[in-house]
């Protein structure tokens, strides 16, 4: 295997910190499953033994935003729900990534009417738009691999000196 072949001689190898950190980051993307409607069923299916999201190091679905790297927004986001999605997104520690899973999340989908946000990119950044209604689990895994590729291209200094966002304090909400 690759690593052992390099270790045959003196027992160390050279790399860059950037490459090492990016490799570590992309190999364990912990998703925040923001399952809002039917896409969440396919997201759950991608975690089962048949599709097995664990092959990509993402089996740890964290139900708290504070321990996750990648938010999978799976479902129709209404105007009322948009505040919740944004609040949870704001609570995730940077660096963070977002998959807009499915037609509704990406563009409003078939819900072209007054209560549905016509694409979550109106209020938060999105890294991958995932087509399908709902997308098959393979498609979600493909999106995850693209996120990994994206993370692999990052440098550690990309996230330097980024101020923490000031979160509004809302009581009784």
């Amino acid at each position, binding site marked *: 295997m690759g690593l052992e072949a390099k270790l045959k001689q003196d027992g160390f190898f050279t790399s860059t910190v950037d490459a090492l950190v990016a490799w570590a980051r992309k190999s364990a993307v912990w998703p925040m499953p923001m399952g809002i409607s039917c896409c969440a069923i396919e997201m759950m299916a991608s975690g089962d033994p048949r599709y097995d999201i664990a092959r990509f190091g993402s089996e740890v679905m964290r139900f708290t935003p504070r321990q996750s790297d990648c938010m999978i927004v799976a479902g129709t986001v209404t*105007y*009322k729900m948009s*505040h919740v999605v*944004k609040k949870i997104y704001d609570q995730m520690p940077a660096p963070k990534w977002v998959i807009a899973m499915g037609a509704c999340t990406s563009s409003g989908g078939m819900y072209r*009417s*007054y209560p549905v946000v016509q694409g979550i990119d*109106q209020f*938060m950044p999105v890294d991958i738009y995932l087509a399908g209604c709902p997308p098959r689990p393979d498609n979600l895994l493909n999106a995850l691999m693209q996120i990994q590729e994206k993370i692999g291209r990052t440098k550690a200094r990309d996230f330097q000196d980024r101020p923490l*966002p000031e979160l509004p304090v809302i009581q009784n909400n």
Partner: protein
Amino acid sequence: MDLKELVTYKLKEKFPEVEFDITDYKEQLAVTFDKKNIVNVASFLKDDPDLQFKLCEDVTAIDWARRKNRFAVVYHIFSLKLNSRIRLKSDVDESDLSVDSVAFVWKTADWHERETYDMYGIIFNNHPDFRRMYMPEEFEYYPLRKDFPLMGIPGSLPLPKKDE
């Protein structure tokens, strides 16, 4: 005695002063009357031992858009004893959108009336918990009215601020 005769007889006997318009369309019985009698008629239909309309299945409204009485409130009630449904209808004009609540007669009407208020803007008096059902509390419009555009009013529903 079929359902129409029974309901007609019972209502005429109990409320001789109220004008009822009882119509039968495709075996669906509809009773139309003035909205100020709604609580009395509803409690009578529920408590009468021969009728026992104990289940309120739906409360909704109709927006006729151009008619003189613009709205109509509609109650679908079901009697387990007779195994049949009737529909109660009352006209509501835009100048006075209030109707007395039947939430104290049928408890299920509570949420149905809130939904009707949310979507059509009909005010139910003496409702135990009168708030909107789906739309945010500060929303100013009523989405199922005919003059509400399908895509909504831009800017009427706030989105979270996008940070740069």
